[in-house]
């Protein structure tokens, strides 16, 4: 039981961390509450399904292709729909909602509403503390660790990362010292869509793929970023594992827990907010005027 909770929470938390990190980056840099983030994750999962099961290429080709495709679609939707109306916050919000619906309906039209299952990429299990862990789960964990580490290195060590953090910190000053804020935003969006793409790609063989799969993780990552503190990367990652474990514990300990795991996770979020309105690691920044 305990081992099941540990493994499930770790895997789910890792996927949430990938998603929440991307969401948090876009919010921090561009101040966009990107509801379409879940849709990018879904798109990548469908791309994996198409590339592996329909086209029939190998995993080594399919994963980079799916991630690249997600990044391109993300940038494209930003150029077409969001960029021209950036001034209007409300319009941007519902544009991201409408984009999500468009993706959902297009996928529904092409693939139908039923669940599509992907075969595992690596077969077999190994015992750990009395539970069977599939190699697929281990693979997911490795990918999550590598990608999180890579993103961390990019953000901390490269010029792009410094530009992203500077823009998130203070847009006006970043612009004043000569950063092209628009290009930084584009780059952030690409990184964010890429992270969502990787999350979708590694989830595809673990779960079934369907056109409504964006909903459940979306609500969870919103809870994660709020718990961790909006725009805080450390907070997003820790929040992701916290929520991942809370959900796993609810599923395994409470009867019919999978129905209420979302509600429990969100209650945790509200509780955190009541104690710390800016989240665990959020900065209580002065009101932006």
């Amino acid at each position: 039981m305990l081992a099941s909770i540990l493994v499930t929470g770790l895997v789910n938390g890792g996927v949430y961390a990938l998603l929440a990190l991307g969401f948090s980056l876009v919010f921090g840099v561009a101040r966009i509450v990107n509801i379409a983030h879940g849709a990018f994750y879904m798109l990548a999962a469908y791309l994996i399904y198409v590339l592996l099961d329909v086209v029939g290429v190998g995993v080594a080709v399919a994963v980079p292709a799916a991630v690249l495709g997600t990044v391109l679609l993300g940038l494209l939707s930003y150029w077409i729909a969001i960029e021209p109306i950036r001034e209007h916050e409300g319009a941007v919000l519902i544009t991201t909602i409408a984009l999500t619906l468009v993706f959902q309906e297009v996928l529904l039209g092409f693939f139908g509403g039923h669940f599509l299952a992907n075969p595992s990429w690596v077969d077999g299990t190994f015992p750990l503390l009395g539970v069977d862990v599939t190699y697929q789960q281990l693979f997911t964990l490795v990918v999550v660790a590598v990608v999180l580490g890579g993103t961390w290195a990019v953000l901390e060590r490269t010029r792009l990362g410094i530009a992203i953090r500077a823009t998130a910190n203070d847009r006006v000053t970043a612009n004043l010292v000569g950063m092209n804020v628009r290009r930084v935003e584009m780059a952030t969006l690409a990184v964010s869509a890429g992270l969502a793409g990787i999350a979708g790609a590694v989830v595809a063989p673990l779960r079934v793929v369907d056109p409504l799969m964006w909903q459940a993780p979306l609500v969870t990552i919103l809870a994660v970023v709020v718990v961790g503190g909006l725009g805080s990367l450390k907070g997003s990652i820790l929040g992701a594992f916290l929520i991942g474990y809370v959900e796993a514990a609810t599923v395994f300990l409470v009867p019919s827990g999978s129905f209420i795991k979302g509600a429990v996770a969100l209650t945790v979020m509200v509780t955190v907010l009541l104690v710390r309105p800016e989240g665990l690691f959020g900065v209580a920044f002065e009101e932006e005027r």
Partner: protein
Amino acid sequence: MFTWRVLKRPFVLLRTEVLVLPSRVAVLAFVVGILALPLFTKDPYLLRVVALTSIFAIFAASWDFLSGYSGQVNLGHALFFGAGAYGSSLLQHHLGWSPWITAPIGAVVAGGVGFVAGIPCLRLRGSYLSLATLAFPLILVGLLFALPDLSGGELGISGIEPLVRSRVGFYYLAAIVMLVSVFAMWLVGDSNTGLLLHAIREDEVAARASGIDTQRYKMLAFVLSAFFAGLAGALYAHMLRVAGPSTLETAFSFQAVIWGVFGGVATIYGPVIGVFLLYPATELLGGVPWVGEHRLLVFALVVLLVLRFVPEGVSPWLRDKIEVVCRRCKARNVFARKDCRVCAAGLK
């Protein structure tokens, strides 16, 4: 002579205050049109669609009262709708009270839920508030699923008594409740209170510095908005005779945001226009081949396209096209006039 004058007054008011502005003529035409519709058609499907549209109009306008006016962008507005629907249905179903008593109680229950939801929200602002409110309806759904004996679980409560049995009767009930509640919200929004809400949205610190108890007004916006959304929810439950978890869905909360922003926020009438444009269109397009199967896609594309070119919403854009504001006295005029109708200053 004197009585003649009293009798003439409404007509004078109509001529001098209503017929001078296209937007006011449009409102008058809308009210008359809604009330007169059953005289021209008895088509039950059409009446049903318009009655549902009216209910959603209350819902969207109440979202606007909270999110547009006080700037507390609520992404979980379905919470109040669902609270009204469940509140009224539970009382009606378990206690057997008349729906005429339970529906207002449902609205009051929703107002109470608004108060409870408002308490944590007073401490939050901006995107934190939006994301936290998104969670509330899902928490309520979890609670309802945890108590299946009381709430009916996933299926909800069915077989609720209707408020009125005849179709035309219910149509009028929905239409009149819609007109009255939208007008009431517009009145509050146009009053001193509404002005304070605008001030809080624009700059909360400055508003507090000017001696406004911002917490109280933000809470007021929450409770009033929740009350009207709950009223809409109760009407909806008694119309469909079922209250289920679908009233609390995230997609339904997003619907309110789409209707509101599409119509134009912080206006009250904007979201009503948004609902009356979008909902019947998506509903009536259901019969068209291809479009009917893909109406959600068409709906999303229409919203995307319209916002791409009119990001401030349809109704403010339209209003600016047909009316000009006098630069001297700030009175509104028809775009065709050369001089202001109030102060006679040139408009060009």
